[in-house]
């Protein structure tokens, strides 16, 4: 396949994944704002922006840290090139450019998602329709992934799409953890108050992990357990370990199909082994923030290696 097309589909899925995770972050933010006073809410909104790397832009524009102010900026502001609307448009533009690499169903799901979300985001979002908008974003991106799952040939094209999804998801989960580490860290050796419990649950919620975590831990909440779950539990589809395992297996399929490995495989092997061998105790001792920063850096290196090894750009 063309290097440009591999790049196109890789980024198409990255944009979709980012849009979905953003919707989850906003949802968690609103939930916190509903149960907390204004002060906590402002911090929460700032953390949403920091997670997405948009806080500086937002401040520069003189945005107010209210639910709707942040939400509209993140979802649909034309001056924000990283808005969800822009990501959906990018995903759709990429899908158009790689139209010959995807099935008609994947294309139609992507195109229809864009039409629906463009309409929904044509006017400012209000509290009354926020829930609908956020669930539409989740539903539409899930629809595209489902169409891929159900109709795409399992070949290199599928592998590049999957790697886009998991590179982005690993990065997003790591960022959420990094921004929230101040919620988690001070309480590592401390029995939390109910306030902390709400915030922890919020961390889980922003990666759709609250239910699974409760089920696994019989309703208990503790910082170390949550960090362990999000980093190391290979059963949870948004954990760092799960994402790396998926990246590894897709890279392995590529190596089989192409008959040789590349730099990305080597980087993946080293990073994967490190993650596999570590424990939550070691991570906490090393420093959660330091660990996450390095993880984000490694993930970026793997993405760069894929880009270079498979000639995404000339």
């Amino acid at each position, binding site marked *: 396949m*063309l290097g*440009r097309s591999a790049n196109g589909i890789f980024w198409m899925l990255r944009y979709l994944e980012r849009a979905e995770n953003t919707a989850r972050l906003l949802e968690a933010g609103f939930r916190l704002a509903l149960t907390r006073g204004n002060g906590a809410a402002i911090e929460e909104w700032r953390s949403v922006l920091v997670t997405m790397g948009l806080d500086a832009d937002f401040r520069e524009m003189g945005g107010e840290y209210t639910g709707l102010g942040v939400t509209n900026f993140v979802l649909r502001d034309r001056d924000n090139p990283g808005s969800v609307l822009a990501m959906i448009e990018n995903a759709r533009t990429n899908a*158009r*450019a790689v139209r*010959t690499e995807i099935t008609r169903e994947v*294309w*139609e799901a992507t*195109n229809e998602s864009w039409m629906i979300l463009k309409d929904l985001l044509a006017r400012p979002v209000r509290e009354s329709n926020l829930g609908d908008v956020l669930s539409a974003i989740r539903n539409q991106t899930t629809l595209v992934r489902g169409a891929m799952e159900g109709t795409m040939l399992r070949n*290199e094209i599928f592998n590049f799409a999957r790697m886009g999804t998991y590179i982005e998801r690993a990065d997003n989960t790591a960022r959420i953890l990094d921004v929230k580490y101040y919620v988690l860290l001070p309480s590592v050796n401390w029995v939390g108050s109910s306030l902390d419990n709400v915030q922890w649950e919020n961390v889980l919620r922003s990666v759709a992990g609250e239910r699974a975590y409760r089920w696994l831990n019989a309703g208990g909440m503790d910082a170390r357990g949550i960090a362990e779950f999000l980093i190391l539990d290979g059963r949870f589809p948004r954990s760092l370990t799960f994402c790396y395992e998926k990246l590894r297996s897709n890279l392995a399929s590529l190596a089989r199909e192409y008959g040789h490995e590349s730099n990305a495989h080597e980087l993946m092997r080293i990073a994967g082994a490190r993650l596999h061998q570590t424990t939550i105790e070691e991570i906490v001792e090393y420093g959660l923030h330091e660990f996450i920063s390095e993880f984000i850096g490694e993930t970026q290196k793997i993405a760069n290696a894929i880009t270079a090894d498979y000639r995404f750009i*000339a």
Partner: protein
Amino acid sequence: MASEPRVTFDEMVDEHGVVRPAYAGFRAWYDEQDPNWLKRQHHEAERSFRRVGITFNVYGDTDGEERLIPFDMIPRIITAQEWRKLSRGIEQRVRALNAFLHDIYHRQEIVRSGRLPARLLRDNAAYLPQMVGFSPPGGVYTHIVGIDLVRTGSDDFMVLEDNARTPSGVSYMLENRETMMAMFPELFTRVAVRPVQDYPRRLARSLAACAPPATQGRPVVAVLTPGIHNSAYFEHAFLADQMGAELVEGRDLRVVDGRIAMRTTRGYQPIDVLYRRVDDDYLDPLSFNPDSMLGVPGIMDVYRSGGITIANAPGTGIADDKAIYSFMPEIVEFYTGEKPILQNVPTWRCSEPDALAYVLDNLAELVVKEVHGSGGYGMLIGPTASKKEIAWFEKKLKAKPENYIAQPTLSLSTVPIFAKAGLAPRHVDLRPFVLVSPNGVDIVPGGLTRVALKKGSLVVNSSQGGGTKDSWVLED
């Protein structure tokens, strides 16, 4: 010169209001349908076109970047007998076009014989010196041709234009049929319509048969597009997808070891046949427009050394020229030794003093076109033009008469569209698509019917309010 017919020919009903045999099966079905249900289907069709993304981009239109070409669900129907005659005429014309192109880039017998003025080649930007003395692989110049036909009477089909450059619209032919079959499946069990859906396979086969000498093994075919912002991008992607070919852009390509190669995830791989949807001028910055970012530097050298087939061949655009068009009857006779089966629209060449005098006297009745123009731009439609426009055009015409030709304002045939108040006749034309390879001329039974949606309008161009219809050729 034939005079224009007084009465417009309607393809569905005759002058007594009786449904013609071609439409009998369709009309019987149509009259049984609930009009409200048809209306709902009509809206559903538009939704489906949007979802599939069958859109075109309008240059310079920033807010609504992608638009739909309106689809009308009343088919345009051609009988088996009419089609037989049309295809014979089209095949003859396309063979003549290829022979003509070969001749003008080699010995120019037609000029030597005094049948075509040398200045028509000499002063023409579409005539490419880079092609002189070169024979493209398989001897094919026009791999894909779209012949624009108009009808003015029961037996009167005329060629309005030859599109030998890069004819577009075939994806609409295919999607219109898809849509009709999805909306009204039972209709196709009642009326036997010849299929068009294998066009992409036939195109792939036809292109592969034109592979260059350097090909090893199964020919690799790719479609070259200017990119997603091009107005016909949907069609480029559609055709590549349907053929199982790569859709490439200039930035994916470069010369590697004397071949044109595309950058794949495994390295550079050579392409054998390039179906390019990029104009000659942008094809190779080393040979043509040096500022072009859409082409491939050096592709003309590779081409001339037998490393790649370019479809259509560079320099075929000269056959679209309207001054050349006016010589088509002579061209057909010269190369085939036969009388043309399909007639030209009567054409006055303003370069000739007698013709110019006639045109100037009758501007208000005529359509005047620039010889190098296309897409309905730079022309005068006498009957609908203001006095001022006519006066202004007269000046241009007198200053450079050789730049213009004139034709009578034709009363194009009508086919009904599905309007709010029911069926309403509108003017149509027809563009069948023709494939040429060393194995012969292959014509898909169908084509693109364009329809002027505005009552009385003769302009069918999609950029000016035209729509499209599914075009049926009936089984024998």
